[in-house]
């Protein structure tokens, strides 16, 4: 519809699906049964944090509040991810159906898509798509003849702040405020958008839910590993011949991915975007899974021509700029880590001080207010640890 639809291969997300199928299946079930089905599937959030979706929905479904919300987190701000865009552009039926299913299950009548500011060009086609859904009574009042089930979706634009991908900062932004993470608890499931119980799900999670409703939790669980069920969309970029969005089951080894995308002379893989961890050659047999190398989808491949300290500097500059600036560990901590990177580049450092910075990074991981500051030291710690020979022995050169 938006662009020429590329035929994509995949056993779960990219498997056959007809618009409205999931909604139809959901409306034929009792709400409790949908929650049980989701629990059966063991699906966890696809945005990166990996919170069990069924649990999230159950809390909101159990709330007696009159007004509840479903929010689709389409901020997709993590450097190196672009799979949500593919879903929104080529498979909007999966995402929107998932939102309607969520609305039905938890008892919400309003859904909001928080769309990444840079995806402005997707907005119009999506609005048109929603309009066509309204025509087919997949949105609106008494959806598909189900008495009393009203649900509609609006699209709201982000403005380019990375922090607004964090669910509570996203809600603040939606409310018209400065994008800053809230204190948790209480979580959005209790006190979300304008204080109402709110489900915030990643685009891909909602898409997966649509499939689960049609094909069942059992079917979903057959893919992936025991703890990481289903398959995952990976946004693979960097030094390889065939970058792009791939659907692969959880449990896939990094080395398999390298083969699949035609990566040669790979030196490092950054798993999970800027806030993820960077692995070296000895770690390429690790698997992509919540229990091993977890990721919201971003995989960046670096070959031997890359300078690790440059890469690290790039990441840290990103965090210094993108921290929302409210909590001390993240706002100032990232500045200090970046200073450390520059010291290493100039050669004016002591190991003692670098140790102190790593220690500081560990504090940031536990003391920051939200996921941003808790994960921003990841590249610092993992690159210095996994590439210390290159960085500290001068083999890769850090003066250029």
């Amino acid at each position: 519809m938006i662009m020429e639809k590329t035929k994509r291969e995949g056993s779960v997300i990219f498997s056959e699906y007809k618009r409205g199928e999931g909604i139809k299946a959901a409306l034929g079930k009792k709400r409790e049964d949908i929650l049980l089905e989701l629990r059966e599937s063991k699906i966890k959030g696809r945005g990166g944090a990996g919170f069990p979706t069924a649990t999230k929905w159950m809390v909101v479904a159990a709330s007696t509040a009159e007004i509840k919300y479903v929010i689709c987190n389409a901020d997709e701000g993590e450097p190196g991810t672009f799979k949500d865009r593919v879903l929104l552009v080529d498979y909007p039926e999966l995402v929107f159906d998932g939102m309607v299913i969520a609305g039905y299950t938890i008892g919400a009548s309003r859904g909001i898509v928080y769309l990444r500011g840079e995806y402005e060009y997707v907005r119009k086609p999506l609005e048109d798509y929603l309009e066509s859904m309204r025509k087919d009574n997949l949105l609106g009042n008494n959806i598909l003849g189900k008495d009393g089930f009203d649900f509609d979706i609006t699209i709201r634009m982000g403005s380019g702040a990375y922090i607004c991908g964090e669910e509570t900062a996203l809600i603040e932004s939606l409310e018209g405020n400065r994008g800053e993470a809230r204190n948790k608890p209480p979580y959005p499931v209790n006190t979300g958008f304008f204080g109402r119980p709110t489900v915030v799900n990643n685009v891909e999670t909602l898409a997966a839910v649509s499939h689960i409703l049609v094909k069942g939790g059992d079917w979903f669980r057959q893919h992936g590993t025991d703890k990481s069920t289903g398959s995952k969309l990976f946004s693979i970029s960097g030094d390889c011949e065939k970058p792009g969005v791939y659907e692969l089951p959880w449990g896939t080894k990094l080395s398999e991915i390298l083969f699949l995308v035609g990566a040669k002379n790979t030196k490092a893989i950054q798993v999970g975007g800027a806030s993820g961890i960077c692995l070296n050659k000895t770690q390429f047999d690790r698997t992509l899974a919540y229990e091993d190398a977890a990721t919201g989808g971003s995989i960046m491949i670096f070959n031997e021509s890359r300078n690790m300290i440059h890469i690290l500097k790039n990441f840290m500059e990103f965090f210094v700029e993108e921290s929302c600036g409210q909590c001390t560990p993240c706002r100032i901590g990232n500045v200090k880590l970046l200073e450390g990177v520059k010291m290493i580049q100039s050669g004016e450092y002591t190991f003692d001080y670098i140790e102190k910075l790593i220690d500081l990074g560990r504090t940031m991981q536990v003391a920051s207010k939200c996921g941003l500051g808790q994960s921003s030291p990841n590249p610092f710690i993992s690159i210095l640890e996994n590439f210390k020979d290159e960085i500290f022995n001068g083999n890769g050169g850090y003066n250029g």
Partner: protein
Amino acid sequence: MDSRKDYRAPLSQQPLTIEKPTDLTAIGGTITVEINEKKVVVPLGTTILDACKMAGISIPTLCHHEDLCIAGVCRICVVEVEGMRTLQASCAFPITAPIKIKTSTPMVRKARRHIIDLMLSEHYGECYSCVRNGNCELQNLAKEYGVDGYTFGHVDKPRYEIDRSSYAVIRDMSKCILCKRCVRTCIDLQEVGVLESIGRGDMTHISTFLEKPLSDVICINCGQCINRCPTAALRANDPSDEIWRAIDDPKKHVVIQTAPSPRAAICEEFGMEAGTSLTQELNTALKRIGFDKVFDTNFTADLTIIEEGTELIIRLYKALVGKDASVSLPQFTSCSPGWVKYLEHYYPEYLDNLSSAKSPQQMFGSLIKTFYAQKNGVNPEDIVSVALMPCSAKKFECNRPEMADSGYKDVDYGLTTREMAKMIKEAGINLPEMPKSHFDDPFGEASGAGLIFGATGGVMEAAIRTIVEFITGAKAEDIFANANVVDVRGFDGIKYMEIPLGDKFGPVPGLIAHLVPNWDWLKGATLKVAVAHGTANAKKVMDDIKAGGKFSECHFIEFMACPGGCLGGGGQPIPTTPEIRMKRAQAIYAEDESLELRKSHENPHITKIYEEFLTEGPCSHLSHKLLHTHYVKRGKYII
């Protein structure tokens, strides 16, 4: 768990206010938690911080403030909660499950130390050259945690230019640690909303609309942000050097008037428990410092009651008897310059409701350079008139261009309690040890009614004591036990009271008897009054008036910009908490009760000034020239 009841913009600085449960049955009981392996029973929903307080365990805090909603941004109060991967900010964590808390593990201690180190690395300046030296929360924490060096470096240049544009508040953002107390004070506590976070990441800083200087935005100068700033990022504009120069200049005749609230609070600056009045000790200290005369602002507070009360009677007569639709009611008090500027910005259409009577400070200012100068044969040009105030907005007020009715700048300097304490210390005087002495003539001692102007409800109580006696001829003591009008006292945000005037009348005293042809119209009338303190409460009352609600039927409303009234003013000693303000109020009311003279109209010096100087009586031509003023329609936009 819908705890966000009030959806007003901007809410960003108000993440999820967790209300402290007071009534255990109402919130569903208590819960047992383990703190450092000790079991503690707390009400459900208590924050970890409060639970620790109950258990006698101290947790360091910076962004937390008792008057403000929760922020959870400084992270200094983090603790370990068993089963949670990350540390939790104890100020922001409501207890809803039987959790196990540890407050002093290696991870917690290291995190706190790191956070202090990080703050110090970006906190510009050195303690010994800082106005908050010795009373700085960051300094205290550094001491508590044994910081002996700058682990992560220290800025050697200021990052931001100091904003000295305001008469009242100086902003030095290089010292800011971004606790956002000022933001929450301005937006939530006062609902003025001048300060906000601007920029992201390491560019984050607190600033104003379009980063304009403070003088060019709708700041009301209340200084509440200063009182809650943990460092010296916000401080008052200190004129003490100029005052020293005047004192040292033999040609200058330097007089000082002292407001009621500083006396009840200055003890705190000398290490004493809050709530000790040092009125007469202060008189002696001021004389020893070198002030030529020390006057009591309460005298013009008494005068304010006469002028403002008279104005009220005239307004009521015109409106109720003369059916004059142009008369604005209810009449608003005008003593609080923060409130006045708030009204000028936010409700300029209600300026006619504001009493035209000047504040006591400004009344005194014009009397000193006219009446006093004549009487004592001093050239007003040589008089330097200082006002010791609990207030930062008074600094702005005395610089208003219209405040020069004496022909000179009526009040030259507004000095805060903090700055006065500094001057006293600088002069080598230990205030609590001073012998006692009286205020100087020709104004002498004033009444208790003037004194209680310092507490919220005080102006109203003073006015009621006088008005009921003027009109009914009865004694205030016969109507209110011990003449204490308790209904307008206390720290409830908004207070309302009806006073039936009854049928027994007069005689109305000569001072005002001539104002209206007859007084029968007040027979059986009920006077409706209200009191609001803190501009957030003022806003509620104003919005109710706008909507034609209960307060629009009031006759007289007292507004104070600061929570607690003047005793909680922006020039008062730091810190401020509800408890400290309560103690200051107790000191003020206790001093009032100890006085013989407790009604403004009974003050013999007031009678004298109307006999000798303002001979045409209250609200006459001369009094209008010297004691009344006009206001500026400012609106929300400043050019």
